[in-house]
C-alpha cells in the first residue's frame, strides 16, 4: 500500500484550514533534502525513477527574516519536522499524514 505525506502550505495554526500544496509518496522515495544552492532554499525529493539533477518534487521555501539570516538553521528545522511526519506515517495504519512546516517557513512555488 502506498503511503503519502501531504504537504501543507503553512505551519500548524497559521491557516484556518489545511491547504495542501503537494505530496511525497514514500514507496519509491530514496532521499530528500533542503538545498541551499540558490537564492531561494528548495525542498527536493529524489525517487527511484527520478533522482538526478533537481530531483522529483521541488518546493521553494519562504523563510521568515530570522530564519533567512540563518539558512542552515532553517534547513535543520525543516528536515526535523519532516522526518517526524515520516516517522508518524511509518507507525500509523493511515495512508496519509499531513506535514506542517515549522513556524517561520512557508511553502512557496511547488514544481516537479
Amino acid at each position, binding site marked *: *500500500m502506498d*503511503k503519502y505525506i501531504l504537504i501543507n502550505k503553512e505551519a500548524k495554526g497559521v491557516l484556518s484550514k489545511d491547504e495542501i500544496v503537494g505530496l511525497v509518496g*514514500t*514507496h*519509491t*522515495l*530514496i*532521499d*530528500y*533534502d533542503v*538545498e*541551499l*544552492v540558490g537564492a531561494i532554499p528548495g525542498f527536493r525529493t*529524489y525517487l*527511484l525513477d527520478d*533522482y*538526478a*539533477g*533537481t*530531483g522529483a518534487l521541488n518546493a521553494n521555501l519562504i523563510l521568515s527574516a530570522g530564519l533567512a539570516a540563518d*539558512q*542552515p538553521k532553517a*534547513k*535543520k528545522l525543516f*528536515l*526535523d519536522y519532516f*522526518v517526524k511526519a*515520516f*516517522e508518524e*506515517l*511509518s*507507525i500509523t495504519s493511515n495512508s496519509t499524514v499531513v506535514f506542517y512546516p515549522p513556524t517561520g517557513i512557508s511553502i512557496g512555488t511547488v514544481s516537479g
Partner: protein
Amino acid sequence: MNFGYVKDTAGITKPINLDDIKIINVTADSIIIRYNLTGTSNIFDELAFFISFNNTGSISTTQIESQFYSWLQNALISTSPLKTSLNSAMPQLEIVTAGLINAAGYRDGTFGAAVDEAAACASTPATNCIVESKVGTPAVGTLVLSKPSATDLDPIADGTYALSVGGSKYFISLKGSRLTSIVVCPLVLDFVFDPNQNASGSASAANYVTLSTTNNATFTNSYYGAFAMSPAFGSGSFGSCSFLQGSNDRTWPCGYIINGFLDAAKGLGQLPAFGVKLADPAVSSYNNAELYVSDDYYVTGNKDLATWVAFNEDYWLQGFSYFGTGANPPAPPALNTVYSMLINNSIATDPSTLAARGRIFLPPATSFSGGATFATTTYLNLSTTGILDQASSC
C-alpha cells in the same frame, strides 16, 4: 513501506528506504546502498544512498558489515524509529552524512592540515575535497569530505585545516567532517592592474589589463553600449598580441579605451580593477595564479581598502553589470553579465569549456614583494574557478 533511520553529525535524521535494494557496498568508512545496477563504481549523481562515517571504534569492515545486516534484518520487521536507528545499532561509527550525492550541491576545493591561522593562510592546501556549499564563505556546519578520486568520498578526521575553495582560503576546524569554525584568510595580492589609469585614446602600459574572447561581438555590443568596432580577427580567434594597443584592438576594456570608445561617460574611471595572486610569490609564473576583481578599487586606489572577489563563475553570474558604484547602469542596451558575455553569444554552450574560450592580457610588472617580475605582456586562459593557466609571453 520499510524504512530505517540514520542521523548525521549535523543532527539531521534521514529515512533509509529498505525496499528495492539491489546492492550494498561496505568499506572501512562508508556504506553505500544502491537501488539500481548502474554506476556501481561511482556515487556522484547515482541512485546510491551514501553513508559516510568515521570509524571511531576502529571496528573491522567485516564487523561493520555484520552489524549492518543485523540492523537491516531488525529494521525490516520493526516500525519503531528507535529500533530502526542505524546509529543505535552501530555506535562505533560517527556518521557524518547520509543520502544521495548530488554534485550540483557541492564545490570542489582543496585542504591540508594546519596548526593555526598563520600556517593555514601561508600554506597551499593540495588534497582534493568537496564542500557542501556553492557560493561565498561556507557556513558553520557545512560538510567537507575528502575526495581521493573522482568516484569516492571520505570523511576527514577532526582537527584544524587550511581550506581553499571558490578562490578564497580559510582556516577551519572540523568535527565529524563538518565545519565548527571558519576564518577567512586575508588576501595577499601580488599585482593590481587598474584599467582606469588609461586615458581615453592613450594607453598606460602598466595598467593595460584586458580581456578577449573568441567571439567578435562579445564585448562589442554588450558592454557600456560601446561602439561596434570592426572585427580585427576572425570568428573563433582570440585577441592577438600584435593587435594590442592598436587601432584593431578589440579587447575589453583597454582596447576600447585606447580607441576612444570607452570614456568617462561609458564608465572609464569606475571600471573594475584586477588583482593577481601568484601560486608562489617568489616565482615569476602566472600559471595557477588566482585572478581577482574589485568593483570599488577605483574609489580609493588602495588595494588594502578595496573589496576583492575571485574572478570566477560566481562573479561572472552577477558582476560587471553596473558601474563600480552599483547604482549607475549604463544604457542602452541592457547590460549583460560577464557570464553572458563569456558563455553566451555562442561562444560556449558549456561553462566547463570556457578555459579555452576566454583570455586575459596582463602588462609587464613587478610584484609588490619584488619577488616576481614579468618583462613582457603575458596572456593566459581564464577558467571558471578563477585560476589562470597556459601563460604565454607576447
